């Protein structure tokens, strides 16, 4: 029989909250983590705001040794390790001791878009200065894509599959489904799934050049990210990491672990950059197929969905996303489920977004609330034509969420959709 998969641990490092308790409070209140970024101003960026988690030097030392922090310059690995280790501890699982065997049944899927871009930049300067030997031993492990999984694995002693996936902004949601598949197939018992997104000008520059990030709110950072709004003018770049411990129901019950929710299933696909799909735009047919296939795998109907954690980045594509949800679920108007977008508070955490937003989804189910949609008092008229304004709470509301859907869509025309059920 197919194994059932549950979530037993959560971890998060987000621009508006580091660690689950702080993040939970922030999303309830609608607290923004978006701030003015002087570095972007100095470099002449059009967009000078961003979402960056605030982490003290002391906090870093709770997770890393002095030696690990020596010549360390990869904030993606920093966020990923902190979120991953928080999820492990939250699940009540201990790392293997140095002289013990590896945890053969525990694996890691931790996704990224890039790793250690700042470290890479530093290395390139040394290389071009003919000082290749000055790179030492730290350049490779911080700039390899799987760096974050490798750091986590070393700290935990993971002995099952340890890997990194990459599917642009769908990375985090895809990671959850990859871990889910491995447990369903009986190849692992526990999978630490997550993703991390780096910050800084060298990551965000390309998006600034593409004019997909907003330049209109440099003087009012907390108002800059406006998903679902008529005045949405591009996304705000963000960063951070989310993580969850997935585990077979059998194992979780045996350990007496706290079960936050069940992963009922999901789907990952691509629009092949055909029809209205392209490198940067989604093929709507593929988006709808992805959602329908996720419902089918979870053995639920569109009418069962209580809440959607949208991708909703605050670009011109938000109305199209809503239309796709309406068609895939067969629901519209007052019959549409609750929907919100975390990106209004955090910005778009890119590769980190799917997992940070999935953590916010589980927290809302667990604590029976829907966090407020901020910065969309002026809802887009194309959106209000499709769904009732009641479905888009502007302040925090109490709500019992039994079934939640999280979807992410990424460059390359890739999609991922996962379905959670409250325990």
């Amino acid at each position, binding site marked *: 029989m197919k194994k059932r998969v549950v979530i037993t641990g959560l971890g998060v490092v987000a621009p508006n909250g580091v660690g689950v308790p702080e993040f939970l409070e922030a999303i309830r209140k609608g607290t923004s983590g978006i701030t003015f970024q002087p570095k972007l101003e100095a470099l002449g960026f059009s967009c000078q705001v961003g979402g960056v988690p605030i982490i003290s030097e002391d906090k870093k030392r709770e997770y890393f*040794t*002095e*030696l690990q922090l*020596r*010549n360390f310059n990869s904030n993606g690995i920093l966020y990923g390790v902190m979120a991953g280790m928080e999820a492990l501890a939250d699940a009540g699982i201990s790392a293997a001791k*140095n002289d013990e065997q590896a945890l053969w049944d525990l694996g890691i899927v931790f996704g990224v878009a890039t790793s250690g871009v700042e470290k890479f930049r530093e290395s390139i300067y040394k290389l071009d200065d003919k000082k290749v*030997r*000055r790179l*030492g*031993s*730290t350049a490779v492990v911080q700039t390899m894509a799987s760096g974050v999984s490798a750091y986590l694995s070393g700290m935990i002693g993971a002995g099952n599959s340890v890997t990194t996936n990459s599917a642009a902004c769908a990375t985090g949601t895809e990671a959850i489904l990859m871990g889910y598949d491995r447990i369903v197939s009986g190849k692992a018992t526990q999978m630490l799934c997550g993703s991390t997104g780096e910050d800084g000008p060298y990551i965000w520059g390309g998006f600034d050049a593409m004019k997909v990030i907003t330049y209109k709110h440099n003087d009012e950072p907390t108002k800059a990210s406006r998903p679902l709004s008529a005045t949405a003018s591009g996304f705000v770049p963000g960063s951070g990491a989310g993580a969850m411990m997935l585990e077979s129901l059998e194992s979780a019950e045996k350990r007496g672990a706290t079960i936050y929710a069940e992963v009922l299933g999901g789907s990952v696909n691509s629009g092949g950059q055909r029809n209205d799909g392209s490198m940067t735009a989604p093929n709507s047919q593929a988006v709808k197929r992805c959602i329908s296939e996720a419902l089918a795998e979870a053995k639920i109907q569109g009418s069962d969905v209580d809440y959607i954690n949208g991708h909703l980045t605050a670009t011109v594509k938000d109305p199209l996303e809503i239309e796709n949800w309406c068609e895939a679920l067969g629901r519209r108007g007052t019959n549409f489920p609750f929907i919100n977008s975390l990106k209004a508070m955090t910005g778009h955490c890119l590769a980190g977004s799917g997992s940070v937003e999935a953590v916010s989804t589980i927290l809302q189910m667990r604590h029976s609330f829907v966090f407020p949609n901020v910065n969309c008092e002026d809802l887009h008229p194309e959106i209000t034509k499709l769904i009732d304004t009641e479905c888009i709470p502007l302040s925090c509301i109490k709500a019992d969420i039994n079934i939640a859907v999280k979807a992410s869509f990424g460059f390359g025309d890739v999609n991922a959709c996962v379905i959670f059920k409250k325990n």
Partner: protein
Amino acid sequence: MTSEEIFTQLSPIITLYLPEDVTKDQIELQSDLTAQLNINSAHLVDIVLDVEDAFDIEFANEDMEKMRTVADAIQIIQKKLESK
């Protein structure tokens, strides 16, 4: 610079790279850096870079190959300092 003086300057550099279960008191002249002090071999290149900065010298690839023990390191450093 005497070998004692070099040891005094070298010891804190090595200490930084010791694993948690090895203490700085265990650093002796004849200690093998990887086999006895349990330093991750990948970190030998970092120790060399720190030594180069501290003593303002530069190691050749051949010097690095010869550096097995604390005493080897001191000998290489001493030679480099003399030929400066």
